[in-house]
């Protein structure tokens, strides 16, 4: 692989990673990592985690004018 293609690949991966993190797309994976590191017992399911996260997000001021 040429250095250029590697650089392009790295940029695209970084952009996708940013988009996933910024949109919350990777939130569940992050939660699993955190859970494995800091907690015992089974983690929440993907669906339960999503529901709880949305509920928490929308109980405070998170949008404005």
């Amino acid at each position, binding site marked *: 692989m040429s250095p250029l293609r590697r650089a392009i690949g*790295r940029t695209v*991966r*970084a952009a996708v*990673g*940013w*988009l*996933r*993190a*910024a*949109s*919350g*797309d*990777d*939130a*569940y994976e*992050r*939660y699993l*990592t*955190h*859970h494995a590191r*800091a907690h015992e017992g089974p983690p929440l*399911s*993907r*669906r339960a*985690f*999503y*529901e*709880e*996260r*949305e*509920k*928490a*997000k*929308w*109980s*405070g*001021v*998170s*949008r*404005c*004018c």
Partner: protein
Amino acid sequence: MNKIAGVLLAAGGAIALGGIALHRHEPINALWIVTAAVCIYLLGYRFYAAWVAARVLSVDGSRATPAQRYDNGRDFVPTHRWIAFGHHFAAIAGPGPLVGPTLAAQFGYLPGTLWILVGAVLGGCVQDMTILLLSTRRDGRSLGQIARDELGPIGGFAALIGTLLIMILLIAVLGLVVVNAMKHSPWSTATVFATVPVAILVGVHLKRLRPGRILEGSALGVALVLLAVLAGGWIDAHPLLRGWFDWPSLPLAGFVIGYGWIAAVLPVWLLLAPRDYLSTFLKLGTVALLAIAIVILHPQIRMPALTAFIDGHGPLFGGKIFPFVFITIACGAVSGFHALVASGTTPKLIASESDVRLIGYGSMLLESFVAIMAIIAATLLDPGVYFAINTGAGVVGSAPAAAVHTISSWGFPVSVQQMQTLAHEMGETTLFARTGGAPSLAVGMASIFGSTFGRGLLSLWYHFAIMFEAVFILSTLDAGTRVGRFMLQDLLGHVYAPLGRTSWYPSVLLSSTLIVAGWGYFLYVGVIDPNGGVNILWPLFGIANQMLAAIALSVATAILVKSGRLRHAWVTLLPLAWLATVTTVAAWQKVASADPRIGLLAAARELATRLAEGALPAPVAAVAPQLIFNQRLDAWLTGFFTAVLWLVILDMGRVCVRKLRGLPVPASSEAPYQPAPRLGALALAGELSREGGR
């Protein structure tokens, strides 16, 4: 090296501003404004923000943030600063910086532009960054709690009531903007309506089919709403279907009110959350596209630098340039509402205190830039066209011939033919008296996009712009109603405990109904007002928003003085003094001015007299009693805002004086210092790559 860059920036900014100054008597290019803005932002960020962060706020990167101390993988998550920046910007940027500058363009392009730049760099950005840091140092507590802890119960209560009222006014005026954009426009109405089932579909996708796959769900949703823009065009061309979506404003207001109530009581995953994902993607995409298009097209600004309306008889809203330009443009320069977000979700994401400059100050700079683009989009229109779209029938009459005659007599020539051609190009039947700012912004955006990316698609671009504005106005409307509901439940819980339980259904229904009734009332009166309603509601919202900013800055000033930083307290005190002055003068004029175009009570008196004389046309006479009541109510509300504002300022003064005299003051609520964990041990959420880390 940095110094050289700074000097170059200063020179660039000076040349661009000089360009604006030299071009005062001939049309200037929008690129001068963009260049001046960017240079001023970079200077503000590089020098002032850095100085405030280091010297005034004593930002300390070695101090553990709440995200690090309480990291739970859910709401407290140490997040890479650029990701947190994205979150924070998406949360603070709503329709406000688009509507305010559009309305303020009646004074010319210069006053609004200068206030957006100066207000943001010295006021709004400082407020956002300061509150963000103060909340980060206090475990992410809200502005209301911080006010209660640091000032006492009076300050805390004022912040709570202020927030609730501003929410109601904000939603009402935004609802009005959407209604005015959909009025008798089947294409717009069909497209905006279609966004509701699309959002529900995305909601079901994200909850049931593919839980949490947000990018996938949002991509699907964005594709569907773009399709809805196209489909709106087909509906508009169909003689039968067209009739189904052709509504006057009153039933449309009814739809919006009903929608708001349903959205507030439905579970968030079904409508609110997916709509918000859509609106965030559309918002970021459109803002980026607009910036690119403005640079490629670099249009001429056609509005004069200053118009004759700075003397107070402007057709969009009455009032002189001082104080009303500073009230009309709140979001984009200084917005008190941001203090709520900066003391809400964002502080729980901060991975290091040294990130607050980028996230707090930087996000507000970007919002200010959105406001600059809105003022460019408004002022590149032919001024005659701008006034014809934005002036209510109550000012120029509803007959097109009379309207163009009046507007041309102001020195802004426009013809019926020109307006008809424009309306036809945009796929609308008429563009006269489409008050509220959204249609004129959409015409401006369509002209920019159309000229840059293909002129044949003007009507599509116009309705894309309307859909874009409506989607995130409705998203603010949902979220605001919900937050208002929670706050009200909190208050009601003190009266009867079960009402405070956020999941008890009778309490949910009651509090949602009360909040929706609150904004629904103002929306209703705005709709029946022959002047369009925005002329009354928007200044009221502006006053409320600046009042909230003044409360936030008071809290910040008190904390600076209490922690022994009196010498630097001017950093928040100066914007506070300015906001207190403009808000108080504006409120005084809104209440007491004898000119019925400005004073609410004078307007109520004039209307009552004309009603008694039988001088009003029948449709106006029918609604006059409600208009009179509403104007009096608005006057009381304005007075109440001013009283709350000065109560907090006096409370702040009391605490500061006590501190300086060595008397006891409420103890600092700052969390004690804890060293941050070693960076190597910490995996930041959204770490870009090994090189991208800090």
